[in-house]
Structures are given as structure tokens and as C-alpha cells.
């Protein structure tokens, strides 16, 4: 499921590049697991690991026990941040199956200075 969203970003990578926006995926996966996923799915953008969900907890994005074997994971969330590090757009979906579309994010990206 999450692959549907990541796949969309990968497919729109030329547009993100052109817009000067760097997509970064973050999950509780270890670097090795992320590397496997990138290889298997052909993702080429940046993947970061938060294995103990420290950042995820700090950003109040923790979905307790929702992962495999009751592991704490991140709820789906997207943040668009401008070059000063200020949040310009947030998407905290209310339904796991509804995700931000690349077109929507790129539209928001046009508003960045």
C-alpha cells in the first residue's frame, strides 16, 4: 500500500527534480531493509531510517503497535518544507488508503520561493 505512494513519487521524480524538491522517505525500517526495498522496487530517492521511532514519536506520528508483530510504526504523513526549514504544507490522511498525489504536492511546490 505504502508502495503505491512511494511508486508515485518515483515516477514523478523528474518533475520533483525540476521543481527543486527533494523527496525523502522515512520509516522504522533499518538501513538494510530500506536498501532492499529500494533495490526491489527500483526507488532512487533518499530513504532514511528511524528504527526506534524516535523522530516519529517526536513529530507525534507514532502509530502504536500497528506494524508487524505489534511493532510501533509511523502513521502515513507528508510534510513539504521550504528552504528555511519552515513547514509549508502538511497531509495527515484520515484514511490509510487515501494518500497525497504527486500532482498535489507539485502544485504546492510551485508556491515555494
Amino acid at each position: 500500500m505504502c508502495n503505491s505512494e512511494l511508486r508515485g513519487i518515483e515516477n514523478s521524480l523528474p518533475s520533483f527534480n525540476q521543481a527543486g524538491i527533494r523527496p525523502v522517505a522515512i520509516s522504522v525500517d533499518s538501513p538494510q531493509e530500506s536498501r532492499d526495498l529500494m533495490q526491489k522496487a527500483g526507488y532512487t530517492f533518499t530513504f532514511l531510517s528511524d528504527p526506534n521511532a524516535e523522530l516519529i514519536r517526536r513529530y507525534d506520528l507514532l502509530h502504536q503497535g500497528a506494524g508487524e508483530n505489534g511493532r510501533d510504526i509511523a502513521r502515513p504523513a507528508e510534510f513539504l518544507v521550504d528552504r528555511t526549514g519552515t513547514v509549508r504544507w502538511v497531509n495527515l490522511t484520515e484514511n490509510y488508503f487515501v494518500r497525497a498525489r504527486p500532482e498535489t504536492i507539485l502544485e504546492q511546490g510551485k508556491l515555494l520561493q
Partner: protein
Amino acid sequence: MNVRTLNWPLWVGFLLTLVAGFSYIAVFVRYPVTRDFPWVNLLLFLVAAVFLWKGIRRGFGRDRAHPVRSKILTSIFATLGIAVIALFLFSYFVVARWLPASTGAPHVGQKLPEFTLSDTNGRQVSLNELLSAPVNGQPPKGVLLVFYRGYW
């Protein structure tokens, strides 16, 4: 069982519920237009429900060659088919909404709290670095952070 006694609407209906359910996970979830709202699958379920209804009427009809067997089979597979439909509706409309409210998440206008995380090569990468390393040969205009559940 020959063609005349075969309760084909029941079987078509039952198989269609399986197709409708699995095709969301296998196919339609990949495309935002059929993912964000599962209209293709709901349509398939609707067609399946019509066949199931016809199958139930046929299975409980008076002209069955083996009335008892027909009623039992019809009951079992109609129930299973309805269960598949219910499970899908419950998963999409109820379970998928069991997400934390995240009221304390960074909001628009706020400076995103700095972080440092490991990339896939084990290198420590900071938000600052993500905001300054060039994209397409130029300083980036922004960074998109996508939090996702993880590999499974």
C-alpha cells in the same frame, strides 16, 4: 451436476466477490484514481451481490434436483460471499481510519524540528543537509518528507 441444475449465478457471484476483494490489493491500490476511493471494487461487489441474490433465489427454488444439498451449498457460499463484501467494506471504511490523530505533528508555518537519521549506506543525514545539498545542480527549493509504514 448438469448445466440445468448447476446454480451458476451463485458461483459467479461468489467468485466475483473474491475477484472484487483481491483486485483492490493486487491491482487497483496502485493507481491513485482507483485507490483513494475503491469505486471499481464497489461496482464489482455490486454486480457480485446481484448474482448472489439470484443464486440464493435459485438455490432455494422448488425445482431443485437435490433441494437439501442445494439449500446447504447456497447458504454456505452466499454467506461466504456476503462475508467477503462485509470484510472489504469494514477494512476500507472502518479499519483504514484507525489512525492516530497526531495533533502534535508539525504544522504549517512552524519551523520543522531538526533531526539526524541514517541513510541506506549508514551515513548520518541531517535535515539541514537535506535542505542545502543541491537538487538538479541548484540549491533545493524544498524537501518533501514522506513517513510510511515500512517494508512488509
